[in-house]
């Protein structure tokens, strides 16, 4: 019971972090059909910027400034890179962001070194919020949930209730019509790209110190975010939300369960002496490949993803 509750809380925290990344990716994708391969690089930059700013000023300044900086960077990338690559089609756009992600890691290594930097949780947020049975739940994780939920509520109301949000929504499905009505669609694209990357940056700010801030962090989370988007269904924000939570919770549970198939068989009374390697692997060992197995299963049984509306 204790394990289940704590894992659930941790899983939700991780899942919300994944959603902050996947929501930006989905928004950018469904609007411009651009798969931003460098999305996780912006997450990494957010963490490094936050480390730098919180060293010079404070964590709270970093919480505000780092996502803004990442967003500005994203806008520049869209304006002077992706728009140029767009002339040559989607493959060129994808490869451009792919090259960018490669370069980003190298630049980060150059500026901040190859080892992890000491980006810590601020002292005001250290400590225990409550103790459940015998496991303590840190304040910072609750803070992460609060920031994510606040941000997502903000994003939702921005897209639903503001004029510019409605124009963005319209441009998602009918960019030509929106253009014909006199709106500057390329500028909306830049804005959405900046917003999406800023969200990734924010995820980096609050995730970098909870996990670890190192040059490998983009590669660690990038493929999983892609899996989330495929599993949720391309272009569906709700789908991305469900898939983020699903993968976050599943993975957290699996990491905590040191059970293998053989152990399970023993539990129900079967005594197995020799078993193939696959049956002897524990769930913990399976955790890293679980998202990909889930993706394969979804593709076989429901190719459009959980909530996807279209096939391609």
């Amino acid at each position: 019971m204790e394990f289940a509750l704590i894992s659930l809380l941790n899983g939700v925290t991780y899942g919300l972090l994944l959603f902050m990344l996947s929501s930006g990716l989905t928004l950018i994708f469904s609007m411009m059909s651009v798969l931003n391969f460098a999305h996780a690089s912006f997450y990494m930059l957010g963490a490094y910027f936050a480390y730098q700013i919180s060293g010079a000023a404070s964590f709270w300044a970093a919480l505000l400034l780092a996502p803004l900086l990442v967003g500005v960077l994203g806008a520049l990338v869209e304006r002077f890179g992706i728009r140029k690559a767009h002339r040559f089609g989607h493959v060129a756009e994808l490869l451009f962001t792919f090259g960018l992600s490669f370069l980003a890691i190298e630049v980060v290594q150059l500026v901040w070194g190859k080892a992890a930097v000491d980006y810590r949780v601020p002292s005001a947020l250290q400590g225990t919020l409550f103790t459940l049975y015998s496991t303590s739940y840190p304040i910072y994780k609750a803070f992460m949930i609060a920031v994510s939920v606040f941000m997502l509520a903000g994003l939702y109301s921005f897209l639903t209730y503001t004029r510019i949000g409605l124009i963005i929504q319209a441009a998602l499905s009918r960019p030509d019509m929106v253009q014909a009505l006199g709106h500057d669609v390329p500028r909306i694209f830049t804005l959405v790209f900046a917003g999406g990357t800023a969200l990734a940056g924010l995820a980096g700010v609050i995730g970098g110190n909870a996990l670890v801030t190192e040059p490998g962090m983009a590669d660690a989370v990038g493929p999983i975010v892609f899996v989330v988007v495929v599993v949720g269904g391309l272009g569906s924000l709700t789908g991305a939300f469900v898939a983020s939570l699903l993968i976050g919770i599943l993975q957290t549970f699996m990491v905590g369960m040191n059970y293998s198939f053989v152990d399970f068989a023993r539990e129900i009374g079967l005594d197995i002496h020799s078993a193939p390697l696959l049956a002897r692997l524990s769930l913990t060992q399976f955790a890293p490949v679980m998202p990909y197995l889930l993706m394969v299963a979804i593709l076989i049984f429901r190719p459009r993803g959980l909530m996807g509306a279209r096939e391609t």
Partner: protein
Amino acid sequence: MKTPPLLNARRLVFWSAYLALLVLLPLAVHKGYWLSLLCQIGINTVFALSFNMLLGQTGLLSFGHAVYYGLGAFVTMHALRAINASSLHFPITLVPLVGGAAGLLFGVAFGYVTTKRAGTTFAMISLGIGEMVAASSLMFPSFFGGEGGVSSNRVVGGKGLFGITYGPQIQMYYLIAGWAFLSILAMYALTQTPLGRIANAVRDNPERAEFVGYNPRRVRFLMMMLAGFFAGIAGGLTALNYEIVTAESLSAYTSGLVIMMAFVGGIGVFFGPILGAALITVLQIVVAGATAAWPVYFGLIFLLVVLYAPGGIAGILLEQMKLWRSGELRRLWPSYLLALVPAVILVGAVIFLVEMSYALVNSSQTGSSEVRVLGFGLDAGRALTWIAGAVALAIGVALLRAAAKRIAGDRYVPPLPQGRT
């Protein structure tokens, strides 16, 4: 329309020349260093061409092509171990086929899932499959050998036919060259078959291909299987050449490298990836030996090609050939020469700035922030050197733009075709 015969004089000359080049090249190089470089180029050529069967010919951008290459290499290595332990009798000459078979098998298994979708989704799924295989390499240390990888010996006791043991690197080179030539020829022949043509149709317009009566999914699946086969052969050759395979051979890094080789070489033309494989392999060894900043240069070259020359080197060459044939190049070459000056300034400025950044960052370890330029020592710790670099960069950009405008102005623009397009 009548299709031209597969064997014509031009092709015969071209392929014979290529074969002669492969046979004669090792005679020109004497040092073992260059010989092993040639071996690496041969392997990478097959790998890059197998990748381009997907991207260039079928329109499938795979971020996980190293899976077939790496698994092919691992299976080959295990076969080699079995041969060494005498539990399997198989001539070494044919061992790369084991890698090919493994690549084909995994191409069938993974291709069934990945080719369900095309376009961007395929790219994401291939990335996921690649990550899955890379992650599972840690789960099965008995097969993947953990951190140390799997190693074996390609010289299997006794004298082989004509005394060929594949012990000396030169014999290994000819084995690689032979398999590479056969594979390249087979891949080229494939582009001329109905399957190759339909793959092009599926790439350009899957809907129309479907209307004509072909199932685009099946075409993608078939091409994926064949691409897996050739990637597996490249993997088998790697296993034989290095006698060790590590998990790096199926990592995202290797998948990225093959994208780079194919794209920089040019994905629109069959021979593009051959050029790309040779260039990137040489750069990788030469540049990485010269400077710590090589990943930055690689990234910049890649971005430059994506943004300014999406046809790659092959695309540029074909464009110049066209100009040569129309006689326009004779009018253009003064402008080209003129453009060379700012290009050199620009490249020099970029290299200077990158090297200065590295010198400055590493100065705490090396104890000096000096960059040597043409024999002069410049201190990267001073603002003046940075200003000089930035000014050179700005001048280079400005002049190159002017030169590009001049070239564009000099070019003969054909009148718009009337009536039909």
